[in-house]
């Protein structure tokens, strides 16, 4: 069950936009397989009456009052942009679409 294939690693790398050589993929396939085996141990103790935990501390999210606060100036917003046109970020054309 804990096997992971080289194809899956390549697919994950692609989703995460990480360029991997074939060598790296082989290396990571072995390592990720071991990690999955380690994680799988959890399923040995998890029974249907143990709910999955996403937040270990029983706190609820605080809610913000709907009042306008500070915003960045356009210059501040664009400060970290590799490229901009004075009001918008310039990004290279992407062969994809909005999600």
């Amino acid at each position: 069950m804990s096997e992971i294939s080289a194809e899956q690693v390549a697919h994950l790398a692609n989703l995460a936009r990480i360029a991997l050589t074939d060598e790296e993929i082989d290396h990571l396939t072995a390592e990720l397989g071991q990690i999955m085996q380690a994680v799988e141990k959890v399923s040995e103790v998890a029974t249907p009456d143990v709910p999955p935990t996403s937040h270990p501390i029983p706190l609820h999210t605080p809610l913000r009052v709907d009042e306008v606060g500070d915003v960045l100036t356009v210059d501040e917003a664009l400060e970290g942009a590799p490229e901009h046109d004075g009001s918008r970020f310039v990004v290279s054309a992407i062969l994809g679409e909005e999600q």
Partner: protein
Amino acid sequence: MARAALMDFDEALERFEPVIGLEVHVELNTKTKMFSSAPNPAHAEFHGAEPNTLVAPVDLGLPGSLPVVNGTAVRYSISLGLALGCSIAESSRFARKNYFYPDLAKNYQISQYDEPIAYEGSVEVELENGRVFQVAIERAHMEEDAGKLTHVGGATGRIQGAEYSLVDYNRAGVPLVEIVTKPIVGAGADAPALARAYVATIRDIVLALGVSEARMERGNLRCDANVSLRPRGQEQFGTRTETKNVNSMRSIERAVRYEIQRQAAILADGGTITQETRHWHEDTGTTSPGRPKSDADDYRYFPEPDLLPVVPDPALIEELRAALPEPPAARRRRLKGEWGFTDLDFQGVVNAGLLAEVAATVAAGATPAAARKWWTGELTRIANARGEDPAALAEPAQVAELAALVDEGVLTDRLARQVLEGVIAGEGSPREIVDARGLAVVSDDGALVAAIDQALAAQPDVLAKIRDGKVQAAGAVIGAVMKAMQGKADAARVRELVLERASGGEG
């Protein structure tokens, strides 16, 4: 783009059964964004802001910034969930949907995945032909909108040809509720109309709740339509496509109809449907393939570590439930009864999209018949001629005032139409226009009698005929009097006076 083969709609329906699923995104009109206190461009106060002027560090995913949930957005989401007949989750949580695209600077969208705030609801949807459907709602979850990309430099202007893109993050972080239906089976040939009526119902609901501006042309309300076909008699659903970018009520109906015809042609030809996203093109009325539909697994959803679960106070939920407006379908039934309209008259108002206007005009004091007459008559005629929406031409209160002036006898229908022109031109309220243009009916009998006597004197043959009992001859005199009064007289009163003067003239 090669035009796809289409099967005749009726034939497609004979051979296949359509199954549709609808995803509607609603931009909430809170003052601030979902996770930051930056102004929300979907709120009336902040429309049309310059690019990247409604942006806080959270909206750009800057290091060290942390999201904080907007309490009003949660309340609005709960209200909307309740109005959709959903259960509200005791505890729901946010999740990260991971993808790389520059419309969100963080490289993930904060959404809800396995624990949406609202689930398992039902909405009553009535079609124009009177058929009523209960559309089952799978879930309604909270998420944030993405920024807006403008593609520049491509030869065709389409994404593939663009040389670069400009990004405005004003919309990034706008609170969204995504409403997902369960697969809708059994609509048959009504499937396209049902898709449209469903989105119209959602619009009515969010408008009644006041949680969104709900303007499709502004993107406040967006619909993705899933369509699949299965051969008649088959249990298993066929492969579906998801058509995006459908931004008007009319387009929703057309897009679903188009996909039914396109898929039927492929299936009948022995082909298979590719599970994919398709784009709707308003100009050609066609869809074209987009990316292959990603597996949910590819988004690598995981619980958002920056946010704790949302656990609404049960008392708040009950408070919001008690404050819910009447559901649109029930409201329509009630209004129809109260107004005493025939099916045809009422459906005419509904189909014209003028129910809210007529209701508001009645609420402002007009009789239902008068309100209907002005909105579906003169206002619709003028709006059609101008290519505008009747609702954009006049306020319900102005129409009610106009109807009142007619009732009071201050205006004839003809004069009222002139006043309406003034209202549309922005000259003021109907009463102000009556005064300014001097349009009131001449109700001074003395002035009318003088005009009548003059007209009778000018047409002695008519006078003779009336005296001979040929009452219809009076028409010529009435016409002359109305002309002399520049139309500002009540024709019925003029007629009365003409007959009175003609018969009494002897004595």
